């Protein structure tokens, strides 16, 4: 299944800062083809920043990021464009375009950026939106949707880009339990199809089930990495024991 | 372009232009304080006054903000003598500008009045402040802080737009001086460029001063640019 372990995405010693404050202090992470890596850690530990850095929204100050073994030059527009063409992200705050309805949000990039044929894009969008349970909201605007609905539109928008790698930032945080399962089902399905994913999530049961590896971050650094069993059942460091203890308790 | 700039000739007029700049600043200063006082009274009437007072102030604001300051000044200068009121140019300009700016300032200050919240006053009451103390310690600082950026901005508007109107009826402020001095040796472009530069420097210094004062006195982050 997840046989191909050639490193698809590789982050080596990456550092990043907002202004003068350094928030990532050397992050190493590999993501093999078809792997699902879960990034966990306390609030403010820099998980979202890792994803932003991969997408080139926050520039790293040190270290490098490789895609299929080739270092990405984030200052080179062509190189950045190639990367963004293959990786899609779902933001923690969804970031749906406020001036577009659901259908437009989902189809604009495939139509205008990827220049795919219109009927194919529309059919795709309808199928994916139906999959996330929003077939009846095609004409709604983001401010008319609940947080959970917006989150699902954001997932649909990312999926319609047909990415090779999907970055998901706490995609279930705004959902009620019923919907959590729907969304998790969607992600499960993607994992089964062999989609490479880097997910930030605190859903322990889910992480345990779909993640091939778990990485625990704290204060901009990796604390521990391993299989879900390693991290959750026999954490090695004190920091990991504390954190796992906390999330398991609630 | 076969126009040769002769800055040397034009620069000889610098003292005259600076003299004009001084008057420009004085006019701006007088107008601003006169108009602020007028605006304060009008805003108070419009916010707390009776029905008739509110109507009258409303009409004043609507009329003066929808007609040109220039026409208002000419009305005073060329119109009032018909009914026996003769004011000199300087007075006409000052009164005209004050009435005009006062209308805009009424709106600005009124926005400050409206922004005072009931619960802030109540909080002051429960703390045992007297009526006057309430006004002085709670209401005035609040209003000042709210309207300071708009007031500071309007001072610049008066300094630039307002005062230059003086030249139209021959008050010897900066624009007027430029007009006169340019004709001395026909260096129109140079003299007006220097005048423009003086305006830029003058308003820039005023902007920075006002921003610093605002920061120091009201903790307002007024933007300089």
């Amino acid at each position, binding site marked *: 299944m997840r046989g191909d372990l050639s490193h698809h995405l590789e982050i080596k010693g990456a550092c990043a800062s907002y202004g003068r404050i350094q928030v990532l202090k050397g992050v190493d992470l590999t993501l093999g083809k078809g792997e699902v890596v879960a990034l966990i850690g306390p609030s403010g530990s820099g998980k979202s920043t890792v994803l932003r850095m991969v997408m080139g929204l926050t520039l790293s100050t040190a270290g490098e990021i490789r895609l299929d073994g080739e270092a990405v030059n984030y200052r080179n527009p062509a190189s950045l464009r190639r990367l963004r063409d293959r990786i899609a992200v779902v933001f923690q705050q969804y970031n749906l375009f406020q001036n577009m309805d659901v259908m437009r949000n989902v189809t604009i990039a495939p139509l205008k950026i990827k220049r795919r044929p219109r009927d194919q894009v529309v059919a795709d969008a309808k199928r994916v939106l139906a999959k996330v349970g929003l077939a009846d909201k095609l004409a709604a605007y983001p401010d008319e949707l609940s947080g959970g609905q917006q989150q699902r539109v954001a997932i649909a928008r990312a999926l319609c880009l047909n990415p090779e790698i999907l970055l998901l930032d706490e995609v279930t945080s705004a959902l009620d339990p019923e919907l959590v399962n729907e969304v998790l089902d969607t992600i499960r399905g993607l994992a089964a199809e062999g989609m490479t994913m880097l997910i930030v999530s605190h859903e322990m049961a889910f992480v345990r089930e779909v993640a091939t590896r778990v990485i625990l971050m704290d204060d901009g650094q990796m604390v521990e990495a391993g299989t879900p069993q390693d991290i959750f059942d026999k954490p090695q460091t004190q920091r990991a024991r504390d954190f796992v203890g906390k999330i398991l308790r609630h | 372009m076969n126009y040769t700039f002769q800055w040397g000739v034009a620069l000889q007029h610098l003292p005259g232009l600076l003299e004009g700049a001084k008057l420009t600043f004085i006019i701006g200063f007088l107008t601003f304080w006169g108009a602020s006082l007028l605006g304060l009274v009008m805003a108070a009437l419009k916010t707390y006054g009776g029905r008739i007072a509110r109507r009258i102030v409303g009409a004043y604001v609507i009329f003066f903000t929808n007609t040109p300051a*220039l026409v208002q000044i000419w009305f005073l200068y060329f119109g009032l003598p018909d009914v026996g009121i003769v004011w000199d140019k300087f007075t006409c300009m000052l009164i005209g500008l004050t009435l005009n700016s006062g209308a805009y300032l009424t709106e600005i200050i009124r926005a400050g009045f409206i922004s005072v919240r009931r619960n802030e006053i109540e909080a002051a009451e429960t703390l045992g402040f007297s009526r006057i103390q309430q006004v002085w310690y709670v209401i005035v600082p609040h209003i000042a802080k709210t309207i300071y950026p708009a007031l500071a901005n309007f001072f610049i508007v008066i300094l630039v*737009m307002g005062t230059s109107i003086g030249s139209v009826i021959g008050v010897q402020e900066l624009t007027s001086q430029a007009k006169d001095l340019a004709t001395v040796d026909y260096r129109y472009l140079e003299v007006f460029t220097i005048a423009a530069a003086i305006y830029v420097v003058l308003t820039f210094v005023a902007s920075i001063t006002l921003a610093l004062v605002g920061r120091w006195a009201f903790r307002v982050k007024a933007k300089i640019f």
Partner: protein
Amino acid sequence: MLERLADEIPRFFSWSNMLLLGEAMAITLAMTLVGCVLGFLFAFIIAFTRQVPGILTLPFRTAAILFVEVFRRIPFLVVLFLVLFFIQAVAQGTSLFTVAVVSICIYSTAYIADIIRGGFESVARQQIEAAQAMNFSRWQILKSIIVPQSWPVVLPPAVAFMVGFIKDTSLVSQIGVFELTFRGRELNNMGFSGILVFGTIAFLYFAISYPLARWGQWLEKRLAR
């Protein structure tokens, strides 16, 4: 006084005078409209230029900022004279109407550019980042995200500026464009009472400005929802 007015009124409101004033109103409106619409266009280009990062565009960015900062600090009257003398130096025989339109255009460009910049900055950073992450080009982001999201913020103050500027164009009378204020001065020189003439002129400005200002307020409410 009343007798004089009673005597003058029929002569003043003659057909030819009314035609004259009607034409003058049209000129006032036309030059404001043409100047401001062109100004809006240039302002948009300037605001966009200020957004593009990189060393290559640094000179353009600096020029754009300087243009806006300088012209907002010079009286319209001075800009008018500068344009007049400059155009006379490079292209004699240009009509005064053109001079007026160019001046209005320069001035409104500077003001509206600042309004548009404020609108652009009001768009949430995350919206732009989401688009960037999907490979939108700078132009596409402008077209599909920034402009649609910022025009409700830009339009009301831009319209307010343009409507307000109708009154400031009265200064164009100073270079001899046959607009409303100029004709008023002319009629006054012909011997008509200042009160009658400038009262009428003020009313005509009011008739243009007030409905447009109300429309602007309505627009603001409409867009705010």
